[in-house]
């Protein structure tokens, strides 16, 4: 951990500890506001179907399901700077799920980040974004969730250390930050729908916006990119998107299929596409893309202008590329259909930071099935015999040649990432 990170963690601790004084200790259990089998409104098939679409757009399933367990039964580990937190069981099971919730209870969770007993949720649950969800849509999501099989699967305990494990301190956090964020405006009916999808249901900002030391979204930096787990969720402001070669058509392709000429959805964006955005209607995809592209749309992308690179770095980089990359990504970087994405025009190579490229080079990417016949095969991480300098030369060559980025990666950068991954 760097000194800076240590400082940040330390100051977060102090702030969170002082917030404790503001928190109110309430007793009670999370049993639903009625706490009984009080007759629930009978959901119509139409409402359940609408709820299914909305719950999919909100991507509930990705964080509320653990591999191999039932859908929505919780257990998925979310890595945060404070430790691990686990998605909860949101099946209608009365003991371990939300079977005792009423429609009001779910609306309250989505809008005020509080359970029926008043205990606050950590903002890993994206209620800052979900506040935008309408009452009608919240009720439809409720109807859909209550129509799912009840699965008994106890929630996992929070993996945060002191003082972040003091759940009630989040009441103080909510006092500070629980208000509708000042998202970039939408100025037409179409972009208003897009804004509702992007900022509410799809909660794009939760990963793509940097957070302050207390984990709140920075209001002056919406969509400017942030570290999320081991990867950087890239800057998706209109200027940054067009700088990396994105067009509205290609963004729509990425969201609806997981693949675009600029590359495939990977890291945390893969489940977001796989479980959520690919099910959106073409009209909703279009609205979302129109909103993300800003009021003037994306500027026509400029072709990549290769950055200067020394002959020795280029020689070494191309040699490693030929040995370990080219048989799948193509000797001219053209990619191989259904195997590996093209490097020519690749969005990740055009990022200002080489972080995502290095993590990908070192750790590889798991095989991806895109839900159609389309797939990308597993990418192995760099073998340990490839030296830090060779990885740096490869990264610099790829970024300079196909990303137009200055060759700034050093062997030291690679070494640090390698040791942090080994731990």
């Amino acid at each position, binding site marked *: 951990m760097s000194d800076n990170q240590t400082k940040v963690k330390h100051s977060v601790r102090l702030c969170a500890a002082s917030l404790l004084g503001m928190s109110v200790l309430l007793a009670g259990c999370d049993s639903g506001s009625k706490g009984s089998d009080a007759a629930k409104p009978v959901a119509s098939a139409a409402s359940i179907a609408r709820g299914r679409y909305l719950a999919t757009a909100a991507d509930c399933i990705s964080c509320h399901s653990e591999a191999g367990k039932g859908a929505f039964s919780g257990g998925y580990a979310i890595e945060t700077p404070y430790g691990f937190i686990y998605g909860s069981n949101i099946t209608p099971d009365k003991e371990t799920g939300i079977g005792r919730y009423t429609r009001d209870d779910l609306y309250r969770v989505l809008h005020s980040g509080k359970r029926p007993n008043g205990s606050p949720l950590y903002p890993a649950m994206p209620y800052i974004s979900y506040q935008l969800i309408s009452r009608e849509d919240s009720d439809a999501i409720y109807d859909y969730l209550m129509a799912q099989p009840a699965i008994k699967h106890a929630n996992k305990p929070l993996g945060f250390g002191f003082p972040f494990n003091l759940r009630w301190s989040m009441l103080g956090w909510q006092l500070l930050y629980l208000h509708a964020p000042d998202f970039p405006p939408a100025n037409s009916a179409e972009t208003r729908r897009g804004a509702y999808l992007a900022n509410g249901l799809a909660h794009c900002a939760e990963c793509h916006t940097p957070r302050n030391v207390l984990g709140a979204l920075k209001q002056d930096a919406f969509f400017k990119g942030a570290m999320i787990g081991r990867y950087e969720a890239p800057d998706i402001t209109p200027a940054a998107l067009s700088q990396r070669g994105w067009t509205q058509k290609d963004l729509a392709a990425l969201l609806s299929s997981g693949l675009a000429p600029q590359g495939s959805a990977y890291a945390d964006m893969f489940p977001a596409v796989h479980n959520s955005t690919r099910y959106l209607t073409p009209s909703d995809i279009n609205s979302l893309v129109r909103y993300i592209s800003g009021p003037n749309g994306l500027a026509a992308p400029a072709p990549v202008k290769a950055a200067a690179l020394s002959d020795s770095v280029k020689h070494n980089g*191309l*040699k490693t590329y*030929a*040995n*370990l990359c*080219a*048989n*799948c990504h193509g*000797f*001219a*970087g053209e990619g*191989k259909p259904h*195997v590996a994405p093209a490097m020519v025009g690749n969005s990740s190579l055009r990022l200002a930071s080489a972080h995502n490229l290095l993590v990908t080079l070192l750790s590889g990417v798991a095989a991806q099935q895109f839900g159609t016949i389309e797939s990308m*095969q*597993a990418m*192995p991480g760099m*073998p340990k*015999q490839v030296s830090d300098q060779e990885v740096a030369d490869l990264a610099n060559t790829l970024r300079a040649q196909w990303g137009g980025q200055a060759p700034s990666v050093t062997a030291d950068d690679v070494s640090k990432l390698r040791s942090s991954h080994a731990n």
Partner: protein
Amino acid sequence: MSLLHSRIQLQLNGKPVAVDAVPEDVSMVDFLREYLNMTGTRMSCGQGICHACVVIVDNPDGSSETVRSCITGAHFFNGKKVRTVEGHALVEAQTEAARLTALQDAFLKNYAFQCSYCTPGFVNEATVLLERLKLQPIAKNQVEQTITDALDSHLCRCTGYVRYFEAIKQVILATPGLVKE
């Protein structure tokens, strides 16, 4: 991307091999087959999935590992010690009679392979497994899971998996020092 030609020098099945002016875009499987006439290593999926093409690399620290020759360039192996499926059996110099390894023998006895296309990969991977267990023996109750994990990535279109599995298990249990009592 203009590619250079350069020399490859490596130790192959215990013997030094050197070829001048090999283009830098030649994959290892092509190098073995087209430049060295070593056709035991087979190009199968060409995408690093089926593992039929794996060869063994002997590391300086005494460990061994498999590397997929279809997605790895020949020049990656420059200066390394490599073994292919041709390198396992002991061949009598005068009569050219081959004495199979215990593993190869077990594969035959179990009729583990049918069309044989995936066999070089299974022989190499299982050999690496045996060598690993020699360095780090495992408990008897871990044998089955260890075989499954080690061979999991190898595909056999004739579905000879159970017979491969049984053959490897027999060899592990019959070879002294691989399993802790």
